[in-house]
């Protein structure tokens, strides 16, 4: 690969990660995304940006892990980030389900109570 190509992909990577960061920050600003869900996304995006700017870091990182093909390290980082986000989602859904159940139970109990009250008044 010649130098022009490397610089081209580097610019693309920097632009891409910057766009992702701005996109997520903007979602938070518009209250379309809660902070707690944004942290993992931002972390992944910042790691990507960092690596894109200081490219030799990726080579050092993959050498350190014993990965012979540096771009594979990129995928590793990405996949780990995605897995963490997915686990976070599963946790959030579990929590929502629990809250949902409590709500439905409480609502049903209240409805029965209300029914009894209005029957007594009649």
């Amino acid at each position, binding site marked *: 690969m010649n130098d022009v190509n490397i610089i081209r992909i580097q610019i693309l990577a920097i632009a891409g990660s910057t766009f992702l960061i701005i996109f997520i920050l903007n979602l938070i600003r518009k209250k379309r995304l809660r902070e707690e869900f944004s942290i993992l996304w931002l972390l992944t995006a910042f790691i990507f940006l960092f690596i894109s700017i200081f490219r030799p870091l990726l080579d050092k990182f993959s050498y350190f892990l014993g990965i012979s093909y540096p771009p594979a390290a990129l995928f590793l980082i990405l996949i780990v980030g995605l897995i963490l986000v997915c686990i976070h989602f599963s946790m959030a859904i579990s929590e929502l*389900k629990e809250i949902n*159940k409590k709500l*439905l*139970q409480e609502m*049903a*109990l209240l409805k*029965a109570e209300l029914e009894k009250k209005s029957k007594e008044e009649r």
Partner: protein
Amino acid sequence: MKKIAIIPAFNEEKNIEKVILSIKQWQPDFDIVVINDGSVDLTSSVARQTKQAVVIDLPANIGIGGAVQTGFIYSRRKDYDLAVQIDGDGQHDAAEIEKLIEPILTQKADMVIGSRFLSQSKYKGTIWRRLGIKIFTLLNLIFLGEKITDSTSGFRAFNRRAIEILSQDYPDDFPEPETIFFLKKKGLKVMEVPVSMNFRQAGRSSLTFFKSIYYMIKVTLAISIMMLRK
């Protein structure tokens, strides 16, 4: 002593009336609460028409565990001393409630399970269910050193302490085997008495082959993790 029968029911319009009336016939001093778990048939209005039961309608189907727990919450708030859980499909015989509550009344146990396997019973069930029950029996032996022959039975009696604990924490689906471990870990006494059960009168059992497999894996996982918690 205030006593209540908790009947979880999901699409049981054909059975629910008979269940309610037979409880009143055998145990007139029991109050009855039907937890209608988001049925799409006439379960709720059929139960109301008997005028013998309080009916609590869950706005959506949240699963047997959530439904039964609603019954425990109700019992606790209304200050009941004893609760019997009995299925809305008519497979449990109200005449056996007497046997079921005896150990609670004499304070020998905090929870009593009606077991199909302690005596000669015609119960067959699918091979998968019986296999599952065997595995749970083994798990019980390993973890608790006690033999529970019918851990999936949903015909049970509870005292005040058990009601209080279960109203706060109860598994969502396939709750029966887990509850045994949970209560025993809390130091409560669990006992079995032999009962006979009827075949389903109408409707189909909720357990298919794949569900049974999922049932076994889910419950085994839940129980194993429960043993890791302190």
